[in-house]
């Protein structure tokens, strides 16, 4: 208990004095998870729309795969991405292993099914008449899609929140493909593991507090934006 109190005290010291490790890990986390969530959004929303609005052979299998993907164990993702990116692997010549892009790739693999799956069910839950109505009122196909997304935005936001929460707090995959290299691929979660390994608990607690605050702030911001739409 003493350790925790002492840790929290030191944690605030480290945060307010701008400890280089704390800054590095925080920036690293925001960069990778931020990029990954944006990419997942750009890929996942269109994919979700496609799955919700079209029918093609094998669609059910595909949707099931996406839904199962929502619970992908991150370490498994890390391992498979690593196998591809290792220099001895098929994509080895890209030299991406142990870099931030490699971490973003792993995080996108984790977050994409969440975004795509939740978007699919969000669009499917909309009243099917909405689509016809929009088209009947002379909306182009693009306008119709925009209307659908707008109507389903609550769920889409939920997808973003879920995706972001999943990847910023994840350690197995990013450690495997990023390597927790100081000055290059260190993020909050991997730095926490490292500091615990070194027995530097106050650093670890400081990083944990930042991670918790970041997750909360991001979720709060998104939730705020999401709830603004309620009741309108």
């Amino acid at each position, binding site marked *: 208990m003493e350790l925790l109190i002492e840790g929290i005290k030191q944690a605030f010291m480290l945060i307010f004095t701008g400890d280089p490790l704390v800054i590095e890990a925080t920036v690293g986390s925001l*960069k*990778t998870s*931020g*990029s990954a969530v*944006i*990419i997942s959004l750009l890929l996942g929303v269109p994919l979700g729309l496609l799955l919700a609005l079209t029918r093609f052979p094998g669609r059910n299998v595909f949707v099931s795969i996406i839904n199962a993907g929502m619970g992908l164990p991150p370490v498994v993702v890390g391992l498979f991405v690593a196998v591809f990116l*290792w*220099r*001895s692997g098929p994509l*080895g*010549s*890209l*030299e*991406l*292993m*142990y*870099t*931030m*892009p490699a971490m*973003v790739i792993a995080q996108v693999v984790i977050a994409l099914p969440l975004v795509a799956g939740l978007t699919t069910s969000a669009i499917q839950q909309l009243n099917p008449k909405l689509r016809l109505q929009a088209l009947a009122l002379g909306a182009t196909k693009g306008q119709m899609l925009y209307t659908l997304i707008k109507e389903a935005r609550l769920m889409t936001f939920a997808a973003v929140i879920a995706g972001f929460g999943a990847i910023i707090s994840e350690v197995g995959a990013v450690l495997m493909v990023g*390597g*927790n*290299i*100081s000055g*290059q691929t260190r993020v909050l979660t991997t730095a926490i593991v*490292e500091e*615990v*390994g*070194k*027995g530097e*608990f106050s650093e670890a607690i400081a990083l944990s507090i930042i991670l918790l605050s970041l997750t909360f702030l991001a979720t709060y911001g998104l939730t705020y934006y999401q709830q603004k739409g309620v009741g309108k």
Partner: protein
Amino acid sequence: MRKKYKALVLFAVIAALVVSNCLAPLTIAGAARSEKVLILATTTSTKDTGLLDYLLPIFKKKTGITVKSIAVGSGQALTMGQRGDADVLLVHSPAQEKTFMSKGYGKTRKDVMYNYFVIIGPKNDPAKVKTAPDALTAFKRIAAAKAKFVSRGDNSGTNTKELGFWKAAGATPSGSWYMKTGQGMAATIRIANEKNAYTLTDEGTYLVQKKSISLELLLKKTKDLKNQYGVITVNPAKHSFVNYNGAVRFSDFLTSREGQRLIGSYGTKKYGKTLFVPNAKK
């Protein structure tokens, strides 16, 4: 409506900035296979003691080469070298290193430094390790007493050393007194501490953990506890894509007069003694 567009544009700009910033290395990596990046696979002890954080910036300043150090057990480090997923290895598992070299996976191997393994364990020392003349006797006593022992169980250099002792002692460690963690040294020490059990560790990692554990140092500096570290360059004949030149420069740096002096002086300030004794052949 206008306000909404503004927010959208702002979001798009931020998104583009964040993504491009993070993916920048992609274009660099794609453009040219850079000689300026070196992948070092090493044991957890060199990272957990902070030695690498101390040496690598100096190496970068001298050569402009960025070292990506991946801390895994020696066994895994050697596997990475075998596949060409690392350029240079800093490991401490002489028996495994010998096989690695004889199979032609490594080009050169040089001694870099040594320290000692130590046996730590509970204060009351049920297996009487403290009075053992050497580590082999200590392991025999632990096995005979079936005293709790925590093993790395991860194919690392320390794990290999430990298994060697059991074998020489004619004991097969199994049963409830023998626990395998599958984790790095620091984590294993912490588990041993909670279980009040014996474990074998390198001295450096023990010194770092010492302040926060209740286990005691029971046996040290016997001849059979010596822990030799070596640097191995991965053979470019096996994998044309390894950064061999960088590996040679790193190997030369560690064994150079300057590198050896840096290694020898590391840790004196923080721990009151050196963690690694340099012993590269002149």
